[in-house]
């Protein structure tokens, strides 16, 4: 298996990147862990050329405004279509995506997922699929609270090494909830009204001496 993992997080400090944590867990229990590269620390053109040498590219990325970060799109711009199939001894080249994001529901990812499918087509790559996980923004701060999620990511990696596919059952588990249920919505609204949802945020703002400015409108 000849797969490269690309971490699409633009975070300046990769230690704080959830995509990095996902990437490391994805390869953690593989017998032959795949190479991982960070898009942010490479020249897009060179990295695109390098990645094209692999049978499969898996991009692990944060959702930014319902899609890939600008930096990842700049990399995608540099990917050249593969020659007509079969491009490799094992068949056509393949591309897949693992998205993790802040909002809870993975329906937030539905605008970019069909694009990724069409992108694979434009590149003459087989589309491996897109794995989605919501409510992931805090993983780097509280990795222990996300043990179950990270275990699923490692299982996804093991299954991928065996089958060269994203395991449907694991993908389904990760993608929940797709939409917020009416019960969840009622609960979230109550939590909001009593002010519980923002306790953590407000603590950070206070630590930074920015609490009083939190609603500022500096540009009018």
């Amino acid at each position, binding site marked *: 298996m000849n797969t490269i993992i690309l971490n699409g997080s633009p975070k300046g400090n990769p230690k704080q990147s959830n995509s990095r944590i996902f990437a490391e867990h994805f390869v953690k229990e593989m017998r032959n862990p795949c190479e991982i590269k960070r898009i942010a620390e490479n020249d897009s053109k060179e990295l695109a050329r390098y990645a094209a040498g692999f049978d499969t590219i898996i991009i692990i990325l944060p959702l930014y405004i319902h899609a890939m*970060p600008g930096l990842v799109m700049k990399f995608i711009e540099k990917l050249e279509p593969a020659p007509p199939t079969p491009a490799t001894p094992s068949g056509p080249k393949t591309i897949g995506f693992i998205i993790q994001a802040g909002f809870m529901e993975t329906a937030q990812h539905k605008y970019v997922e069909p694009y990724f499918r069409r992108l694979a087509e434009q590149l003459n790559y087989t589309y491996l699929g897109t794995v989605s996980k919501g409510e992931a923004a805090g993983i780097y701060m509280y990795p222990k609270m996300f043990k179950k999620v990270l275990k699923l990511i490692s299982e996804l990696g093991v299954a991928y090494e065996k089958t060269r596919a994203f395991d449907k059952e694991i993908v389904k588990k990760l993608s929940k909830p797709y939409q917020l249920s009416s019960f969840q919505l009622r609960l979230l609204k109550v939590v909001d009204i009593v002010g519980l949802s*923002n306790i953590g945020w407000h603590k950070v703002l206070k630590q930074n001496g920015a609490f009083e400015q939190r609603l500022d409108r500096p540009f009018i």
Partner: protein
Amino acid sequence: MKTVIITEGENIPASADYTLDLAKAEVQDCIGCWSCWWKTPGRCAFKDLDEFYHHYVTADRAIIVSQVTKGFVSGKLKTLFDRMIPLYLPYTEYSTGESMHVPRYGRYPDIEFYYQGTFVPPDGRQIFVDYIQRVFYQFHSKNIVVKPIGERNS
């Protein structure tokens, strides 16, 4: 009517109070540092868009001319979208049945979004249009028009 124009090198016959040409401007990519939410609320750690932010949140409409790239918005335009996160609050609201950012400002411009380029059939164009509609819905613009540049009434 105050108008902001965002282009990628294209000249369009419309008068603007402010123009951001992404073919010329060097806009830093967002690095996810969250300064704009937790350290200096509303202000990005990078200062290269300060003038744009001012004109955008005080405009009645924004005209955007996008060069379709691999069936999507270009990396440069996507970076601009990412860098608009300081214009919204970190709080989430659920009144529409899904997670939405809370506006930081009282209002945002109407959007006229024109695109130029090709798509993968059969649904590449629809995927693009749905995406743009969603971005500016999330960005709390009230009226959003997305059309090919050829259909713009000058």
